[in-house]
């Protein structure tokens, strides 16, 4: 039996540590999937103005199935669709810049980029890749409606954007986020969620449900 004792003690230590971790997780976890976090609110107001109260998060079950069936698997990088009370739509997209996890907000209005802002620079190299989070670079994407392409020289054609020097891969990441948002907008524009209906369906459902009770 003595041969098992070290293994049993290790198992006991692992179990105790796991239990403590589970307790900490329960105490600190906040579900942010359905609400606007401070960072997301700051990013989206940087595009469309107003205050955080003007925005609602479009429930994932309304748009995710549409994007998941698309043949372009990159569209699954859309993590949140946010809608302003005037009908403007913004997509939060997490892409790979220099590294995975570059979190951007792209506002699309009438099929063209209205503005781009950064939710989190993730692990882009400080002072190099993070230069792509500067509004002077992000504003270059405004008005693109077809496809953003990163070039290293002065842009010469529609949709071309000059990369930030020494941050080509982060610049490509931003362009990728813009293209994903444009693609997602294309697929979702005919769906009621994005087009005219300004009041989220839940609210109406709740209102009628409350009426019948």
């Amino acid at each position: 039996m003595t041969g098992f004792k070290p293994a049993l003690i290790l198992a006991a230590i692992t179990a105790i540590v796991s239990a403590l971790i589970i307790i900490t997780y329960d105490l600190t976890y906040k579900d942010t999937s359905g609400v606007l976090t401070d960072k997301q609110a700051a990013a989206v107001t940087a595009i469309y103005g107003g205050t955080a109260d003007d925005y609602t998060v479009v429930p994932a079950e309304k748009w995710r199935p549409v994007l998941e069936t698309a043949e372009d698997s990159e569209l699954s990088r859309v993590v949140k669709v946010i809608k302003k009370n005037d009908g403007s739509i913004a997509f939060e997209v997490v892409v790979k810049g220099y590294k995975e996890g570059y979190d951007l907000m792209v506002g699309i209005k009438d099929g063209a980029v209205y503005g781009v802002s950064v939710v989190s620079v993730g692990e882009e190299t400080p002072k190099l890749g993070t230069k792509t989070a500067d509004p002077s670079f992000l504003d270059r994407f405004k008005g693109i409606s077809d496809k953003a392409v990163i070039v290293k020289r002065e842009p010469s054609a529609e949709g071309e954007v000059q990369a930030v020097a020494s941050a080509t891969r982060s610049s490509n990441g931003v362009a990728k986020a813009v293209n994903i948002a444009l693609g997602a907008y294309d697929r979702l524009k005919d769906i009621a969620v994005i087009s005219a209906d300004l009041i989220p369906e839940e609210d109406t459902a709740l209102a009628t449900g409350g009426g019948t009770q």
Partner: protein
Amino acid sequence: MSYMKEFTKGLVKENPTLVSLLGMCPTLAITITVQNALGMGAAATFVLLCSNIAISLLKKIIPSQVRLPAYIVIIAGFVTFVGMILQAFLPDIYDALGIYLPLITVNCIILGRAEMFASKNGVGASALDGLGMGLGFTLAMLAVSSVREIIGNGSWFGIKLAPDFIQPMTIFIMPAGGFFVLGCVIALVNRISDRNAPVRTGCAACPNKDGCAGCGTDSDVKEAK
């Protein structure tokens, strides 16, 4: 050995980064800005302090055959705990540390101190040892990151120092600059503490000799050379 000595030895004499050359990966990767270096230092110091105390308390319970996995589980537990607390209350620091936060688990300084010190000494001494080593690690990263941020970005702790017309030397915040600055800081510390290369490399001159007692003898080292 007096308690004060347990604390101060980690600062310069047995500095884990600059003398023992442990924990090189975070030292090179995170020292791009002073702010990141201090955040990493604080998180690592906290984990080092907690794991040293816990391992010192459990040293009689943990059988020697499974001590390394047991240490790693305890250290990983504290790292996960710190990660969750930072994410909930200090999300900015959590974002800045990124992948390097969970990687504190495999920081060799922490495992090194658990194996070399906490598993053989009392709780009080282990706590002071952890605190001193953590501060030594933080100070080393502070020195490296100060040089890199000032030369590589023209700022210190986010405060702009250089006027706009001076182009910072970007190489210093890239990996090559990290190695260069780290080498210079190690050389400087060796110079200040007047340490010369030992004539014969044996166990006597090694700052880690307490940890490897029993693994190999002095003569083995000589033969291997």
